[in-house]
């Protein structure tokens, strides 16, 4: 039996060998070498343009009479105004049984559509991008469209995914190896120069591993040494996107496993800030390490995501004030993903990291825009919270995102009681007026 297979055996081996060689050569020439030198052939942009045309065609074929706008119209009327309107004639503020209507309506409106819970799931799209994961209403419309989707699956999983996984391994492997080598050099300008080049190169390979098509705006505002760079957070990929255009010092917790290996290698080449799990709770220690780093002008700018968690890129949620208390220049950056090509949001309560990366690498592409905003500093008489809100508003405006005051921590935790007490206080004021007659316990 085996004698029949011998000639085929060597033929198959030969064919495999040749295809691997061709594969790697193409990879090297078209992807890795340009990544090293930071140039681009423009293949990805061409790919992006053809995808857009395809999606427009697919959308026309779909019955999308239901456009995904808001389901209800909310009136932004305040409590006082509403209750004033409802008072039956009498001018003096007094309890009326109809006061309940305001709370009732507001409550039911928030049940039908609220501002917060929808920020923690992927954004819904108006057109379909041939990924069933992003279309909740998918059902058989036409054979042509389903066939197209099938072809899309083949291309994405059969061709793009293996390509990207290979690149990802190459990028990460090179990062670990090269940063360890650079770590052997004595501290000095040479080492910094090499470390910058190595980091940039490896991140560029990772960018290509995701087929990320990034447009950087206003690069003259790029963060400089001795400052802190803050950005809105949508996914772990944000780090790769920013770090492939500039060099930053990362901040994070020490992990075990593969992440730990990468972290230890990176810190050999240039000083990043990695915290032990126990140190994270100690806010003073954290603030001290950050300030020390910032004070040293030879060290790279720190990259921080003040939201503290991943938000789905339709809004910017409350910034934690810790990084704004340090008192150095803040360089805000706005990142906006184009959801048509692949949703970059990491829903960490639903998907683990590996699942998420698989989704990323089997999407069409990651298309995003990065805006570098002019640097900001804390003004006289402004406290950290106000400064944080000012920076947040600037980022939201530039990126076209909704500016919310809600805490990103609501993804997992309950809302604080103090907000309910504020509502109660407001109503009490309306009820008894601000006259001296209003005695509060």
């Amino acid at each position, binding site marked *: 039996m085996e004698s029949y297979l011998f000639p085929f055996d060597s033929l198959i081996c030969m064919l495999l060998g040749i295809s691997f060689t061709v594969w790697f050569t193409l990879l090297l020439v078209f992807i890795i070498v340009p990544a090293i030198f930071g140039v681009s052939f423009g293949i990805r942009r061409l790919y992006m343009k053809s995808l857009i045309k395809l999606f427009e065609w697919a959308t026309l074929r779909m019955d999308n*009479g*239901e*456009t995904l*706008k*808001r*389901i*209800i*119209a909310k009136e932004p009327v305040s409590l006082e105004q*509403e209750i004033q309107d*409802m008072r*039956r004639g009498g001018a003096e503020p*007094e*309890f009326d*049984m*109809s*006061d*309940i*209507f*305001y*709370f*009732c*309506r*507001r*409550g*039911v*409106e*928030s*049940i*039908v*559509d*609220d*501002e*917060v*819970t*929808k920020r923690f*799931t992927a954004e819904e799209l108006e057109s379909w991008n041939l990924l069933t994961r992003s279309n*909740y*209403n998918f*059902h058989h419309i036409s054979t042509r469209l389903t066939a197209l989707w099938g072809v899309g699956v083949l291309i994405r999983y059969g061709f793009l995914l293996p390509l990207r996984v290979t690149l990802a391994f190459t990028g990460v492997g090179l990062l670990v190896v090269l940063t360890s080598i650079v770590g052997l050099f004595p501290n000095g300008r040479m080492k910094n120069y090499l470390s910058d080049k190595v980091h940039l190169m490896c991140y560029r390979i990772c960018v290509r591993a995701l087929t990320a098509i990034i447009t950087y705006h206003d690069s003259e505002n790029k963060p400089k040494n001795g400052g802190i760079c803050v950005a809105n957070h949508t996914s772990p990929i944000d780090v790769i996107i920013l770090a492939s255009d500039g060099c930053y010092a990362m901040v994070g917790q020490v992990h075990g496993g593969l992440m730990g290996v990468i972290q230890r290698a990176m810190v050999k080449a240039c000083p990043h800030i990695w915290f032990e799990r126990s140190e994270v709770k100690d806010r003073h220690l954290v603030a001290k390490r950050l300030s020390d780093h910032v004070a040293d002008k030879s060290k790279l700018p720190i990259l921080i995501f003040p939201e503290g968690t991943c938000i789905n890129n339709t809004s910017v949620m409350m910034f934690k004030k810790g990084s704004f208390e340090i008192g150095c220049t803040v360089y805000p950056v706005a990142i906006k993903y184009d959801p048509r090509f692949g949703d970059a949001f990491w829903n960490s309560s639903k998907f683990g990291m590996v699942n998420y990366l698989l989704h990323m690498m089997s999407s069409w592409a990651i298309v995003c825009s990065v805006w570098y905003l002019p640097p900001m500093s804390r003004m006289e008489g402004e406290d950290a919270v106000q400064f944080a809100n000012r920076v947040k508003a600037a980022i939201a405006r530039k990126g076209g995102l909704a500016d919310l005051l*809600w805490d990103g921590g*609501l993804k997992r935790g*309950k*809302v604080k009681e103090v*907000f*309910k*007490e*504020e*509502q*109660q*206080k407001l*109503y*009490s*004021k309306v*009820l*008894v007026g601000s006259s001296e007659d*209003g*005695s*509060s*316990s």
Partner: protein
Amino acid sequence: MGLQGWRNVLALKTSKNNNRAAWQRAFPVPLSHSQITRLYSRFHSLDKGENGALSREDFQRIPELAINPLGDRIINAFFPEGEDQANFRGFMRTLAHFRPVEDNEKNKDLTSGEPLNSRTNKLLFAFRLYDLDRDDKISRDELLQVLRMMVGVNISDEQLGSIADRTIQEADTNGDMCISFSEFIKVLEKVDVEQKMSIRFLH
């Protein structure tokens, strides 16, 4: 979303006219296909346990509802007597009270009796928010408790008590020191209930 759930939604989207009537008879709410689909997707996104029904915790996860002083009472309105789970039909029924009132309601011949979003039924919804023990009367105690929910710690017991007494005095006509539903309706006859207790659904 569960398979049966999606089958329902797909049946809705692809139904022909006669099926649509049957569908609307099953669902006592004359909303459009797209509105029902959107509400189903909202129901599903709130249902973290993915068991086809909402629990009280699912509602409390909405921050804007959690900070509403009457949040708990509103959540209670979605759960029938003694039950802890709200299915989609119950969800829709309760939300139906908040549909704006239109003059030429087409559903008058579909449902028997008054539509859920009539003025009387809206007032009944509000009445039930006050009526904690569901005995169809608002006693002084119940009124006090609801008032306390609305004002928190900012008003003293005595003042709140006098507000409650005054309210009951004005509303009570048969002298039983409680407010019945008909007295409630009389007290609010000049208020534009239809507008204040309606949500504007788009498309």
